[in-house]
């Protein structure tokens, strides 16, 4: 089996400051990788580089395109790249308001990717949207309501449905549970774990919350000052941290 995503030497500088430096990893189909670290550790820069929103100064991102195998993302045309981003990839924003269109209904939000990829049957778009709303535990009868009428946790689930409707193989998530109440977080984490398993999704999740990482991720990437300081299986890293920084992170969470 080949990796789905292969990253090597990824570097980004903001003037003299390092955004992230020489980051490399492989992600396998169906695997969940959590990127952990404090704010300023470079994890958000890494996610923005992976999503091609930010251009890297050095390094490559290769993705296993359907039928084409590992392909350098930088070599894709803009049209190919955008097509990929709205079909085979998903991106879940920390704040659902950034990932949803707040001025159109829940149904239009979930249906947008379908329409962007050529779906032209209103009734079918609608029933697919309702189906996905049910899968993320939203009431399908609320399909015509605006996102603002949903609670924060529901908006986040709506954003997830909007991304998964084209059955992507890779989803990038930026602190998907931050900003939610603890009980809401737990429910969302449950849902994410179930979706990842049942669809065989590969995911890169950026989080500062080690509990989230422990629940969802198979592997961990610990970042500090823009560099990867430790990587390994989640349980291994969390139960037996090697790098002093990871030890500090783990101990601080245990103390809380």
């Amino acid at each position, binding site marked *: 089996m080949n990796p789905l995503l292969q990253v090597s030497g990824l570097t980004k500088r903001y003037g003299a400051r390092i955004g992230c430096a020489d980051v490399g990893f492989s992600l396998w189909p169906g695997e969940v990788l959590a990127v952990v670290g404090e704010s300023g550790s470079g994890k958000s820069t890494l996610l923005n580089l992976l999503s091609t929103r930010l251009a890297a100064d050095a390094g490559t991102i290769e993705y296993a395109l359907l039928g084409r195998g590992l392909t350098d993302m930088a070599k894709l045309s803009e049209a190919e790249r*955008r097509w990929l981003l709205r079909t085979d990839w998903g991106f879940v924003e920390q704040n659902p308001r950034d990932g949803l269109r707040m001025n*159109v*209904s829940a*149904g239009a939000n979930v*249906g*947008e990717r379908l*329409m*962007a990829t050529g779906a*032209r049957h*209103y009734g079918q778009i609608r029933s697919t949207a309702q189906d996905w709303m049910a899968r993320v535990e939203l009431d399908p009868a609320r399909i015509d309501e605006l996102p603002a009428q949903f609670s924060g946790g529901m908006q986040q689930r709506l954003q997830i449905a909007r991304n998964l409707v084209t059955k992507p193989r890779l989803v990038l998530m930026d602190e998907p549970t931050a900003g939610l109440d603890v009980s809401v977080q737990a429910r969302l984490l449950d849902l994410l774990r179930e979706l990842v398993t049942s669809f065989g999704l590969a995911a890169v999740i950026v989080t500062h919350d080690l509990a989230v990482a422990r629940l969802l991720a198979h592997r961990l990437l610990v970042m500090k000052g823009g560099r990867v300081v430790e990587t390994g299986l989640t349980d291994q890293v969390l139960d037996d941290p090697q790098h002093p920084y990871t030890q500090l992170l783990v101990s601080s969470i245990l103390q809380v």
Partner: protein
Amino acid sequence: MTTSGYNFAYLDEQTKRMLRRALLKAVAIPGYQVPFGSREMPLPYGWGTGGIQVTAAILGTNDVLKVIDQGSDDTVNAVNIRRFFARTAGVATTNRTPEATVIQTRHRIPETPLAAGQIMVYQVPEPEPLHRLEPREAVTRKLHALADYGFMHVKLYEDIARYGHIATTYDYPVLVNDRYLMAPSPIPKFDNPKLNHSPALQLFGAGREKRVYAVPPYTKVESLDFEDHPFSVQQWDAPCALCGASDSFLDEVVLDDVGGRMFVCSDSEYCSNRQAAGHAGSAVKEAA
């Protein structure tokens, strides 16, 4: 007859050449908006300066010009533009659609079918069909380049979800030649089917926004819709009260302040031709 001191059809020949180059490009890429060096015209922006510049660029001494606004040859703006070309170019003008070689229009396509060899010139206030959804030109240009039009369907979806049908009645977006999304100018959607495979060359000029675009003869022009909510045009309960036509776009005329009204053809030439040929609507029959 012509006003001295100005070139034929007002614009200097250099400017006309610049316009014709832009128009040739527009014809070569149907539906694509070509930027051009729009000039200040002696009419205000928004009053047809794009259409006037296009007409000025293509007009020859043997052309016969028809100008309509809201389907009528007699509205003040149509009269004014026709007068402008009569003064500056001295070309023949007509009200009769079949006699015209160039038809400049605002908001309508004549009911009389167009013929090969005729040129329609549309006045366009807002050439960018995506503008109401995305005001930034730097973004819309990219969306056109990538044919990334999914968002347009989101808008139509939302209409149906909210109202049960698509709630756009004029300037209804079309896809030209299976490639470019295009604003047909604020013609009623009733006229959209006339754009499709028209034997006439159709040119669109937006003066203030400095864009021209075109639909060459016999080109596919498709109004956006859903398979299960197909595009449809307006219909009226009764035929034209003057000529009895049941196939034309009707304007509502308010007769009094107690709800009295009647519906008559917006295309005044079509209506009077039918009346001359002996057709009569309810208002004429009552009066007789």
